[in-house]
C-alpha cells in the first residue's frame, strides 16, 4: 500500500514538475521545477530498488548540475517575450524531436527484451544478495571495462577542450604569490622612525 502510494506520489510529481519546467514563465522557477523532477525521479529509482542510481541522481544532477544551471539562469537577464515569440514556429520541430525520442525508447526497450542477440549477450542476473554498488561495480570493472575507460577518456577530452576554449592569458593581472606572502615578516614591513617635528618621512 505504501509502495503504491509512494509510486503515484512520485510519478505524479515528476510529470507535473516536468510540465511546469516548460510552462513556468520565470527561468529560475523552471530550474527549480526541474530540480523537483530530478528529486522525485530519484524517489522512483529507490522504489525500483536502485538506491545507488537514486543517490547519484541527487548528488550529480541536483547537487552539482542544477546548481550551476541555477547559477547561470539567475545571473542572466532574459527577455521572455522575445524568447516565447518563436514558440509556435518551433512547435512542429519540437514535436518531431519528441516523437523520434519516443520511437527510439520504444524500439530500444522492445529489442532489449526480445532480440535473440541481445538475450544471448546479456550479462547473467546478478546475485540478489549483492548490493547495488557491488553489482554495478562488478559489471563495470570486468565486462564493460573498456567502455568505462573510453567514457573516461571522452570526459577528459571534453574537460581539456573546455579549458582550452575558455582559458586566455590576461595581461595586467596581479596574482598573489602565496609563498612570498607567507615569508613576509613584521620587520620586512614595519620600520620605527623617530621623526623630528615638521619633517616628512623618507620612504
Amino acid at each position: 500500500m505504501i509502495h503504491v502510494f509512494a509510486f503515484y506520489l512520485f510519478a505524479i510529481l515528476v510529470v507535473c514538475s516536468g510540465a511546469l519546467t516548460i510552462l513556468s514563465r520565470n527561468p529560475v522557477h523552471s530550474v527549480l521545477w526541474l530540480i523537483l523532477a530530478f528529486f522525485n525521479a530519484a524517489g522512483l529509482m529507490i522504489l525500483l530498488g536502485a538506491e545507488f542510481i537514486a543517490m547519484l541522481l541527487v548528488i550529480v544532477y541536483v547537487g552539482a548540475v542544477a546548481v550551476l544551471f541555477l547559477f547561470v539562469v539567475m545571473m542572466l537577464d532574459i527577455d521572455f517575450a522575445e524568447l516565447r515569440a518563436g514558440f509556435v514556429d518551433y512547435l512542429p520541430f519540437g514535436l518531431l524531436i519528441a516523437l523520434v525520442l519516443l520511437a527510439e525508447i520504444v524500439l530500444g526497450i522492445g529489442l532489449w527484451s526480445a532480440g535473440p542477440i541481445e538475450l544471448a549477450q546479456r550479462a547473467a542476473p546478478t546475485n540478489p544478495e549483492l548490493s547495488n554498488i557491488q553489482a554495478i561495480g562488478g559489471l563495470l570493472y570486468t565486462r564493460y571495462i573498456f567502455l568505462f575507460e573510453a567514457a573516461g577518456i571522452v570526459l577528459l577530452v571534453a574537460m581539456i577542450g573546455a579549458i582550452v576554449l575558455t582559458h586566455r592569458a590576461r595581461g595586467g593581472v596581479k596574482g598573489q604569490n602565496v609563498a612570498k606572502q607567507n615569508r613576509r615578516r613584521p620587520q620586512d614591513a614595519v620600520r620605527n622612525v623617530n621623526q623630528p617635528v615638521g619633517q616628512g618621512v623618507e620612504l
Partner: protein
Amino acid sequence: MTAFFQGLGLPFEGAWLLSTVIGILVICLPVMLAVAMIIYADRKIWAAMALRRGPNVVGPFGLLQSFADGLKVFLQETIIPSAANRTLFLIAPIITFTVALMAWAVVPFQVGVVLANINVGLLYILAISSLGVYGVVLSGWASNSKYPFYSAIRASAQMISYEVSIGFILICVVLWAGSFNLTEIVESQKGYYGFLNGNGFNPLLFPMAIMFLISAMAETARAPFDLTEAESELVAGYQTEYSSMAFALFWLGEYANVILMCALNALLFWGGYLPPVDWAPLYFVPGIIWLFAKILFFFFVFSWVKATVPRYRYDQLMRLGWKIFLPTSLLFVFLVSGFLMLTRYGGAQ
C-alpha cells in the same frame, strides 16, 4: 519498534509508518534541543576566549538564553520585502532547516540504533548535504537585494568546491571500510594496533581526518570560511532581508548542519559510538555517550577555530579547496586504494 506496534494489532504498513514517525521525532527533537544548547555553548566558548562572560542572565549561567532568543524571534513580525519573490523567499529557510534535519536519518547512535540502516548511507549524506546549498542560493535570489545575491553566489561556489574534496575524502574511508553503510564503517574501525578504535589512528587516513575537519568548516560556512555572511562586506549575507522565524530557521539549520558535520567527523574517523580505546570496561558506557562526547569535542574545535582564526579571503578559500585539498585528497584515494590492492585484496596479480 515495528514489531511492537504489530503486536498491538496494527497491520505491518501502519505499524511501520507509526514507528518511523516516532523514530523521526525521537531524533529530531533532541537534535533541535542540542542546537539550542550548542548555540549557547558556542557563545560561551567564544566569550571565554575573548575574556568576556557571554550569555549569563537568562536562567542559571544563562543556560536558557537560546530559548529566550527563540521566543523573541517567534514573537517578531515576519517582514517580506515588497520586491522579493514571496514564495521562494519563504521556502528558502524551510529548505535549509529541513535538509539539515534529514541527514540525521542514517546516523547510527549505537549498533542497530539508526532510523534508516540503508547500505548507501554515506552517499545519502553526501546527497543531502549537496541540497543544503539551495536554501542559501534561493534566499539570496528571492530577496532581490544585492548583498544576499553576492552571498548566494559565493555560497554556491564555495559549497560545490569543497564537496569535491569531501567526496574524495569519503571515498578513502569507504575504500578502507569496504562499505557505504555508516554502521559498517564504524564497526570497521575497531582494533587499530589491537587497542585503538578509529580510522584517525591509521597513518594513511589521519591526513584525511584533518582535511575533512577543515572541509567541514568550509562546507558549513563556519569561520574562518564564513564568507557567505562576512559582515564587513555583505551586511549579513543571504540572511540580510530575513526576520523573525524565517531568520531563526536559517540559524537553526546552520547549527544543525554544524552538529551533523561534527557527528560525521566522529563517525568516519574517530570511531563514532565506539570508545576510543578498545578496552572491555569502556564498552559498558553506552555508545551514544561516546558519540555525544566526540560530537561535543569537535564542536569545541569548531568554536575554538571560530574564536581564533581570522577570516579567509575568497581567493585563498578557493585556492585551498581546488589547489591544495583536491590534489591531496586525490593522491590519498590513489594511495589508499593502492595500499589495499597490495595488502588486503591479495597483492598485484
